[in-house]
């Protein structure tokens, strides 16, 4: 079939390219709910599904290399202006729970290491509730809230997470609330159960309990999604997850925020029913293992294990090096110092290397991240201003100015290291647009202060969309050197009556030789010239 397609010399661009919205919400019957075994997920992803040989390019991108809006992702920061207020608001729809009224506990929490329960407020909104342990107030709840703000701004579907403060006396147990006891049996929840649940919770001096309230997601839960393959009974799910750019690029975001628990267990598919069927929306949930929050060896909430983010839970090479050196070789991350700030876990920026970062165990999508996937994600990271980071961190209500300052500074430094690593690996030109008779673009690398472009070599060609051939148009010309940042660089578009033109642009930079890797921009004639394709060549 593919051979036939190639023989037919397919047009590169179709009339509706570049697609901005993936129509992956065709009505389907409700798929089956699935469960996930944590142990099996670790084993399977550690010993199977590792990439072998060349990794193919991401398959769900449009011709600009962008991720279209879909049931997985909504373009936000970078695709449009996002105010710091909007970033701080996150996925807010109905707001935090109404804690001025009685709250009804309707279920105990199952799974995960944090105690908690599900409650309904007086307005009828359902929230999943977790709290911090007495030994580490604010740690987990702050991370969960702040993390949700970042991942929402990145573009993922996430729940609305908010900090709230409740009193034990406010809590009523719904007659239908059940707890699961040993052996998987369920029985009605009692006041003792609730007291035990809350026994380890950190309390304020006035007795209130700080919680993270996660608003229940819309729709019917279907269980987690996997970072590989597709869901067999979801007809809209046609792109293998390990080849989705937003899941590959998630590695960059997860590294920035040290979301080492970025695995299937912390995802949730929801079925949104409608007339004649429904569709599945895919969410990331639970950000309590970000920003240095995590768990200790006893699986209690605590500052994250120093291994997290640095080594898989099972990784052969460091084991063998330690074994055969009789323990004299020591994992470098063991000696990383972490300053202690109330409410902030083990996160730092000096030792952090984005390319060396690891989740708890191999993630099939992360392992297939290519340079262009990483560039896409790093460009989003680059869009977070210092004020945006500050606004997101403030939502965690750490209650300690020094803690907040440390976390903000650390995230800004990790952001800069992320950008500094990925931008020099490719030609960091972006935001291509034709204005009047000029092709304009941004050099994100220059904007980030990573190097200076001494010039741009632009080769124009007429592009035959039917055959894919390029017909050179004159000789290479040199565009103007960027004179100020971030003023877009204008390159005159040749006066030609072709249907498609292509500009192959290399950036001359003595500080960043990799910027010479060409970016080819395709223009299509409509009412005027429009950018229809971007190709980041090797």
């Amino acid at each position, binding site marked *: *079939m*593919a051979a*036939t*397609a*190639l023989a*037919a*010399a*397919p*047009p590169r661009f*179709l*009339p*509706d390219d570049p*697609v901005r919205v*993936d*129509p*992956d919400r*065709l009505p*389907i*019957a409700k*798929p*089956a709910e*699935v*469960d996930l*075994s*944590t*142990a*099996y997920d670790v084993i399977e992803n550690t010993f199977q599904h590792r990439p072998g040989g*060349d990794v*193919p*390019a991401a*398959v769900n991108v449009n011709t600009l290399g962008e991720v279209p809006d879909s049931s997985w992702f909504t373009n936000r920061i970078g695709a449009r202006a996002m105010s710091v207020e909007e970033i701080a608001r996150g996925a807010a729809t109905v707001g935090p729970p109404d804690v001025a009224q009685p709250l009804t506990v309707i279920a105990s929490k*199952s799974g995960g290491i944090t105690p908690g329960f599900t409650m309904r407020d007086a307005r009828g909104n359902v929230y999943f509730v977790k709290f911090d342990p007495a030994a580490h107030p604010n740690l987990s709840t702050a991370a969960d809230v702040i993390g949700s703000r970042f991942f929402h701004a990145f573009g993922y579907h996430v729940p609305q997470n908010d900090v709230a403060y409740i009193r034990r006396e406010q809590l009523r147990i719904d007659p239908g609330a059940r707890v*699961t*006891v*040993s*052996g*998987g049996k369920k029985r009605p929840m009692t006041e003792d159960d609730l007291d035990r649940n809350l026994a380890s919770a950190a309390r304020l001096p006035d007795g209130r309990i700080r919680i993270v309230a996660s608003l229940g997601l819309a729709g019917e839960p279907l269980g987690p999604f996997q970072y590989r393959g597709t869901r*067999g*009974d*979801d*007809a*809209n*799910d*046609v792109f*293998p997850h390990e*080849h989705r750019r937003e899941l590959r690029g998630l590695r960059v975001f997860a590294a920035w925020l040290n979301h080492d628990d970025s695995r299937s267990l912390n995802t949730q598919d929801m079925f949104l029913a409608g007339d004649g069927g429904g569709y599945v929306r895919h969410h990331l949930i639970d950000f309590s293992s970000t920003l240095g929050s995590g768990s200790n*060896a*006893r699986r209690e909430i605590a500052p994250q294990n120093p*291994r997290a983010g640095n080594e898989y839970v*099972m990784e052969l090479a460091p*084991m063998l090096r*330690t*074994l055969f050196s*009789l*323990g*004299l070789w*020591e994992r470098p991350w*063991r000696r990383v110092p972490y300053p202690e700030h109330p409410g902030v876990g083990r996160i730092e920026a000096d030792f952090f290397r984005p390319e060396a970062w690891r989740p708890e165990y191999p993630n099939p999508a992360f392992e297939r991240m290519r340079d262009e996937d990483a560039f896409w994600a790093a460009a989003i990271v680059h869009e977070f201003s210092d004020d945006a980071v500050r606004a997101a961190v403030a939502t965690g209500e750490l209650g300690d100015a020094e803690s907040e300052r440390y976390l903000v500074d650390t995230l800004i430094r990790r952001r800069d290291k992320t950008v500094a690593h990925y931008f020099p690996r490719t030609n960091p030109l972006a935001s291509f647009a034709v204005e009047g008779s000029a092709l304009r673009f941004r050099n994100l690398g220059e904007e980030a202060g990573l190097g200076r472009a001494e010039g741009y070599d632009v080769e124009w060609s007429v592009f035959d*969309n*039917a055959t894919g051939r390029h017909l050179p148009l004159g000789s290479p010309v040199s565009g103007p050197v960027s004179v100020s940042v971030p003023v877009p660089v204008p390159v005159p578009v040749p006066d030609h009556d072709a249907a498609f033109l292509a500009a192959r642009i290399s950036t001359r930079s003595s500080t960043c030789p990799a910027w010479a890797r060409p970016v080819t921009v395709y223009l299509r004639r409509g009412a005027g010239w429009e950018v229809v394709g971007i190709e980041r060549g090797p």
Partner: protein
Amino acid sequence: MRASVLLLAAVVFSGTAAAADDAVPETRVERWTRLRREKAARAAPPHPGFLERTLIALEKAERPSFFGFNVGGVYPRALNIASGSETAAGIRLWRPDLGRSLVDLHASAFYSIRGYEYYDLQLGRLAHRGDEFPARSTRGDDVYELGDVARVDAGRTVLYGSARWRHYPQIGFYGLGADSPTEGRTSFLSQDALYEVVTGYQGPRGAATVRAGVMQAFVGPGTEEEVPSIGALYDDRSAPGLERQPDFIHLAASLLLDGRDQPGNPHRGGMIALAASRFDERGGDEFTFNRIAGDARAFASLGSPQRVLALRALASADRPASGARVPFYLQEPLGGSRTLRGFRTFRFRGEKLLLLQAEYRWEAWPALEFALFVDAGRAYGRGEDFATSGLATDYGFGMRLKTHEAVLARFDVARSSEDTRYLLRLGPSF
């Protein structure tokens, strides 16, 4: 997988469809929609395999762990009940805080593949932490086991009654003292019952106990087929108490001071255990004796938590009453997986005993530790004083599987002048 992805990519990004006919979509959206319609025609729910289904079922059951499985507080278990017993299967009954009272109930029953039997019952306020099992005491007053007493965050008083019955049919005996030859290997049956009352204190940094009770003992022919029974080579002079085993009033006091960072998997700190006991023969004084013993262990991280130097010194001395003798079956042994690892279990016995151990441990992974070790020790015969000359030594290499809190299993290879031993055991060396 890769081929299918390339095929998908070809279909998704090519401008023509599979065949150049009227059905060819004209737009990208139509193309993607066609892929979805094709998939809808063959949609099928996922079918996890057997292993995945099993693990899901176990995890959804929300059992704390495999080891937490029990029926009404009765837990199936497999463990070593004594040195040389090999693996025993059995059950432990554990009902802490009966009816929300301060009273705990513990009992166990085990039978090993070498025919060893062990039964015990404790009722009262036991030394334990939370819902965890109390430290299993197979010897009652033994200084070896004091290090296994769990620490608790808040101190608690201990007061309980205990009954224990043991049947060990293949205990090794080579004679007494350091010069006992390997050719003198025999076996005997040791059977005893101990009824006692125990009181004390269990705290965050140690424990102190006092116990008083009655011990009944019986020694008979060993059942090990490869070696002769004890009576074939020894008599009551060379094996005191072989002819007659009296009952004893047993009094003991022990103290544990524990500064280890994690008692079951220490990386730094130390502990010292001291025990003093009296075995007072009922109706006579031929076998009355006192014993004092100490067990000191130190752990130091060598520049990193992954490198640990572990040291241990253990000494025990029996002092018989005037004219009395110490029964051979109550004399402390050396040899086996927790003492002199390059020698057979119970290789040496004596009225005095000295053991020195050193291990260099390094973690290749938090759950996998390796060790180089050396052991030295000696059992001293009657009238001999402690001396560092004539120590039996061994050395070896070990591998351990562990959690943060405990060593689950270990495999040690130990070599001595007499033997090379391959030891697969549950629990730590020390």
